[in-house]
């Protein structure tokens, strides 16, 4: 399929992923008085700067902590797609990635938001993308053998989550890697789009929190986020979790592994549920 068409589909804000209930700590950040300018000088510019800075810090911690999982899940499913790996082996790798993400995400609010969006992506694939509507013929050449294998894999993974199996949570970065690989999107596009959507979802949350207006959000998206997303991808595209690493790969946890880079964001995101009133789920 034409990659550009897939990108349009996946970046559509109508995509049912449940991302609209997540602010990834932004609501809590604002409630705790961060980036709040003195009342008399609360100009729209200052507010814009605050949001842009939050997006930057959030991206720069999300990218190194989540992108390695996106990349490895994409790689694992890609191996199945090309016939280089068998389904049980792929499923085991996905569970290992999911279990590791659960262990490394030591923030219950982020874990909850991640798992609910991940499950939504699996459902989206199974119900929305895996097969053509009704009995209609598919216009895609993807009625190829690998499409069936992808659908079977996603169903099997969903089942392990529904059964509540150990290490099966369906975390967002893992599921995003699965979804994109199953659709045949390249790894580079998969990584870039994931971070772009993270940034866009923060801006959409900022608008709904009435912190900035919709035009300011578009300004930030065009003038600031492009460069931030590009830089984050440049820096983190090569990171891996180690789950797929084999002896001789030279993978080194300190140099090449996932990491959080923003302890303040972590504390504020975890305190989300303590807010007296809130409109988001994270």
């Amino acid at each position, binding site marked *: 399929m034409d990659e550009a068409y897939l990108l349009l589909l996946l970046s559509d804000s109508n995509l049912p992923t449940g991302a609209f209930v997540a602010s990834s700590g932004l609501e809590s950040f604002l*409630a705790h008085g961060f980036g709040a300018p003195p009342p008399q000088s609360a100009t729209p510019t200052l507010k814009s700067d605050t949001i842009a800075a939050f997006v930057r*810090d959030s*991206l720069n911690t999300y990218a190194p902590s989540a992108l390695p999982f996106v990349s490895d899940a994409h790689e694992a499913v890609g191996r199945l797609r090309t016939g280089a790996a068998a389904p049980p082996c792929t499923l085991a790798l996905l569970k290992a990635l999911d279990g590791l993400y659960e*262990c490394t995400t030591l*923030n219950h609010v982020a874990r909850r938001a991640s798992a609910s969006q991940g499950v939504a992506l699996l459902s989206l694939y199974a119900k929305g993308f895996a097969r053509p509507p009704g009995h209609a013929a598919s216009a895609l050449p993807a009625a190829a053998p690998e499409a069936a294998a992808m659908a079977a894999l996603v169903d099997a993974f969903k089942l392990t989550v529904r059964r509540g199996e150990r290490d099966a949570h369906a975390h967002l970065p893992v599921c995003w890697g699965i979804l994109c690989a199953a659709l045949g999107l390249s790894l580079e596009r998969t990584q870039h789009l994931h971070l772009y959507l993270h940034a866009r979802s923060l801006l959409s949350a900022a608008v709904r929190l009435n912190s900035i207006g919709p035009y300011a959000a578009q300004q930030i998206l065009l003038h600031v986020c492009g460069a931030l997303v590009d*830089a984050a991808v440049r820096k983190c595209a090569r990171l891996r979790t180690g789950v797929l690493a084999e002896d001789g790969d030279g993978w080194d946890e300190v140099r090449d592994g996932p990491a959080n880079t923003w302890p303040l964001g972590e*504390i504020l995101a975890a305190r989300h549920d*303590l807010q*007296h009133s809130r409109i988001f789920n994270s």
Partner: protein
Amino acid sequence: MTATTPGRGRISLALHGTDAVFEELSSAYPLKLLSPRIHRPGLAVAYIISYGGGLVSGDSVALAVAVGSGAILVLLSQGSTKVFKFRPGQRAASTHSSGPLLTTTQRMDFEVSSGATLLLLPDPVTCFRSAAYNQIQTFRLARDASLVLLDWVTSGRKSRGEDWAFSRYYSVNEVLVEGRRIARDVMLLENDDAGPTGLPPRTLANKLEPYSCYATLILYGPKLQGVIRALVQEYGRISVFKTGQPAGLLWSLSGFGDGGVVVRVAGSESEGVRRWVGGLRGLEEIVGTDVWRAFG
């Protein structure tokens, strides 16, 4: 690897009757271990010290610790672990600034047996300007072992105007119970965030302000259940109303594994964070008032 290799150390504590006895307590420069006499059944204390009060570029410390069944080991340090780019007064030609910066590495492996308790309560790590530090700690617990792990970092020497001015701080804490990983906390603080963006630079200080100390406290195991319950209750009572100014100290609490918690604290002063941790009465009950005072 023997303890005579530079920077290596071993601690092995066993319970003989009601006495906690060090079966091994050995170390080699620049690492030093001291154990004061403690009059409390089943408990022993060791201080982890580095010669000259700090570690320098290229130093490598590796400590292996085993806590035997039923024993309680408290590990403290004397003053913060200072990480220099250079050894003070020894700006040797071999480490001049044009060369690649060698990272200081501290690796600690802990094995906590059945019914045993490890309390790792060092002073915070303070990385000086341009220093680079890796700390990798692995905790292997038996099913009913208990753990208190405090890992904290400050923004540098305020007296010299340092405010998150180090080059890199990387810390991993991994907890395994009977070989199964239940938590892996990886924190990386560095000053060159994402490379060139064409946007104005954003420093580490920018994104960590207004705080100059960040702490992670991990509590796990049967001996900590009382402390954990009290903390969970206290946390649950917090209600955040929209404010115009950040608080001087903030903490968060999340559960992990089965029954463990990770607490994170940010404070505008490290002493405030120390007071907060020092206020955990349940920990004082485990180690006794004298030892608890030694922590702060």
